[in-house]
């Protein structure tokens, strides 16, 4: 039983770290919650001299929680100004104007 809890606690702690680093916002709280739950169960099933691992795992998940919460509250979702994209928009617009004039010319010729 304890071995299973160790496996699950480590697995969800690793997932919590991965999702905290990636830009998944509050979705990271899912593995964090499960890691905390299994960490606490592991703590309960451990003897006094076996509590080092669950303490480490719970500390890591607590740090992940704080990190995700901080990102959610403090980091604003924004789009960076992409010079390549801006240039592409200008060029596309210029091309479109030419294409419209060609279309008009074609219509004139047909008339």
């Amino acid at each position, binding site marked *: 039983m304890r071995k299973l809890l160790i496996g699950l606690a480590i697995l969800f702690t690793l997932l919590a770290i991965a999702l905290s680093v*990636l*830009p*998944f*916002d*509050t*979705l990271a709280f*899912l593995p964090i919650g499960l890691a905390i739950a299994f960490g606490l169960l592991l703590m309960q099933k451990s003897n006094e001299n076996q509590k080092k691992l669950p303490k480490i795992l719970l500390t890591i998940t607590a740090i992940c929680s704080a990190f995700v919460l901080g990102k959610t509250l403090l*980091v604003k*979702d*924004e*789009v*960076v100004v*992409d010079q390549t*994209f801006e240039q*592409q*928009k200008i060029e*596309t*617009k210029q091309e*479109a*104007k030419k*294409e*419209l*004039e060609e*279309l*008009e010319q074609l*219509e004139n010729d047909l008339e």
Partner: protein
Amino acid sequence: MKKIFFTICSLLLLCSFSTENSVNIKAGEKLVYAGSYNMSGLMTQLAQVTMTTENVATAKNNYLHLSCELSTYSKWDSFFKIRDIYESYVHPTTLKPSLYKRSIDEGGYTKKEKYVFKDNKVTSTVKKRKYPESTKTFSIKPTSIDAVSILYQLRLVDFSKMQTGQTKSYTIVFDEKEIPVTLKYMGKETVKAGNLGSKECYKISIGAKTDALKGKDKNLIWLTADAKKVPALIKFSIPVGTGQLALTSASGL
């Protein structure tokens, strides 16, 4: 992303039960949306969608340039960067399209499309990454329009005359083919509309004969129940999940 865009377009547009040209779409409008995707029951913000209008003049004519841009938030750019532009050049009052262009860059996959509308025919030019450019001409219905201009045509519709449950069929041109779409008016609801505050909106359900949309009455759009009929909220359900576009800011209305 193509499916998401198609869904959004379908939701927005096909609300054209009838067209009343009493309201004009003005140049200088800017609508900004926060695009979210449902991941394990939690909405995660992925991208910003910006819809703008501006006048474009050639030597002979004036056009209204309708543009719809999609850019991932900076936090996603390192993982999966998206920079899409969908644009249409339309007649300023009838909104009939003359030229439709689409340029997508989704995580390195690129594709460019150009549709030239002339009478009841469309000449399409498509260039996908690693593939040679291809050109095709195909016939369309006189009422068929492109995926961007229809987004604006719906704002000319008088929904106040619609009855709950009333449906209407439409056709749009997307991916070099015509796609029939059915929409259903579902009454009014109040939703948040960004800087416009909470607004009473027309609720419309969209269905299309395509694999891009999933579920019954799960693809929805809320349009403000005023003269501007601004799309305030869009919810979509596609084979790979669900998501929404929420209006964050509207200016130049």
